[in-house]
């Protein structure tokens, strides 16, 4: 019988952009158990809300994550709006949808680059990040911020996108899509990618559902859960079907994200073509008194912002449940029985966002 040894993985590791620690219990080269620990970048944002007035907290909510910051801000705003019964103008809903999907493109391209880098495919990594720049340019032009947009507010959005810019964004999507197809072809068909990802880190569909896997981690295992199906923002008015793969391995999770690039482009096209004229915000009076679980689909999966107000200008409780936190139990399961050399690829395959998770 082999002797068990424990190898520490992280908190600093070449494939980890952010710190998480895993104690890997090994028998020979096989992982028999993975024990995670977090807390290296915990910021206590959930208690910071008690020190800010509720409209100010949008800025903090956005800073929960440096990748999907817009979606955090929007989800918080949706929660407050639901409690206060604020009717957000339709145009603001469409703008929120457009920026959310650009955020998803930016996040998925960032992840695909990191994933390629984790596999040692540096040329692919650089190509992904080059395409990501196009997305960041659009976000910067339309919101003023490349990473932190600051364009969402309780009651709507702070900025509008002029019709001429929307037209140009629409036409720019065509060449962008062609470039993404070239990238997609490599991720889906290249031998070296398939060799590193096929059959690695398998999470069966029933376990994925039972363990609460969300986002591409769940959809890569056939769990067709996508919060955009709830119809928040303008998603209820757009044609949308979640991307689902059934093999449950690293390749499937990668394929979901690759295919979601094109879903996002399609949603942006639909939103730009349908966006109505009109106001982009309404004046919000009073203070929130009540509670709501606001949910949205972040690039990594289902995001929950629970907000509870007591009729004052301060929120008494904010709870941010990020997709990475709920994807940790599935990660622990999918690493049981894997080879040590596959650990970096498996960890990356859930697209861990530790900054988000730590809050």
């Amino acid at each position, binding site marked *: 019988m082999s002797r068990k040894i424990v190898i520490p993985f992280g908190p600093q590791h070449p494939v980890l952009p952010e710190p998480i620690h895993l104690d890997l219990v090994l028998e020979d080269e096989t992982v028999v158990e993975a024990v995670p620990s977090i807390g290296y970048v915990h910021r206590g944002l959930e208690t910071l809300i008690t020190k*800010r007035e509720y409209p100010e907290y949008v800025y903090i909510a956005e800073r929960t994550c440096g990748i999907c910051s817009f979606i955090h801000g929007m989800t918080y705003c949706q929660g407050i709006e639901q409690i206060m019964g604020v009717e957000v103008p339709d145009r603001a809903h469409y703008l929120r949808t457009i920026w959310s999907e650009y955020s998803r493109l930016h996040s998925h391209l960032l992840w695909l680059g990191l994933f390629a880098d984790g596999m040692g495919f540096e040329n692919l990594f650089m190509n992904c990040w080059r395409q990501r720049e196009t997305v960041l340019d659009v976000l910067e032009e339309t919101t003023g911020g490349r990473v932190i947009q600051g364009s969402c507010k309780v009651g709507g959005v702070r900025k509008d996108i002029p019709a001429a810019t929307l037209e140009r964004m629409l036409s720019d999507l065509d060449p962008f899509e062609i470039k993404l197809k070239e990238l997609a072809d490599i991720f889906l068909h290249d031998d070296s990618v398939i060799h590193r990802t096929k059959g690695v880190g398998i999470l069966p569909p029933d376990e994925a559902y039972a363990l*609460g896997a969300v986002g591409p981690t769940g959809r890569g295992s056939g769990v067709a859960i996508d919060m955009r199906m709830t119809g928040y923002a303008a998603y209820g008015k757009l044609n949308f079907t979640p991307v689902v793969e059934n093999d449950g391995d690293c390749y499937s999770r990668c394929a979901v994200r690759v295919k979601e690039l094109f879903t996002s482009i399609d949603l942006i096209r639909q939103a730009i073509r349908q966006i109505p004229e009109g106001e982009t915000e309404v004046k919000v009076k009073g203070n929130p008194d009540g509670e709501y679980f606001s*949910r949205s689909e972040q690039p990594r999966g*289902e995001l929950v912002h629970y907000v509870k107000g007591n009729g004052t200008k*301060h929120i008494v409780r904010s709870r941010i*449940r990020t997709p990475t936190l709920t994807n940790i*139990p599935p990660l622990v399961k999918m690493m049981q029985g894997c080879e040590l050399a596959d650990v970096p690829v498996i960890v990356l395959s859930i697209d861990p966002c530790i900054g988000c998770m730590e809050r």
Partner: protein
Amino acid sequence: MTIEDQQTTVIDLSSLIGKVESFKNQGCRLVQMHCTRIEDNFEINYSFEKDLSFRTVRILVPMDTEVPSVSGIFWGAFIYENEMHDLFGVKVRGMNVDFKGNLIRTSVRYPFREPVFKGEGEGPCHERS
């Protein structure tokens, strides 16, 4: 704009396990668990979902009460239960994976256990004005 249906039910601690089991038997998934300190009590919420129907059960227990783990029903619950323990000091009995206070490495023990803002004119926000 959202089309989802949300309901929150307050239940007794004694009926928690039975209620969570019924959600499991209905094929629901565990969406999240979280804790809030309210005066000298902990309010703990357990949220479940199936087919976009979002249900939350809530218990309100004195701070030193031991709460049974639901990780025997939903295996992934250990992440939330360890988080509640490490941040609030909630005593959870029978977790399937117990990190014994080491999941979240905090410099202060149970940092969220202290009372938070209670109302207008009180608490830390008052210090700003």
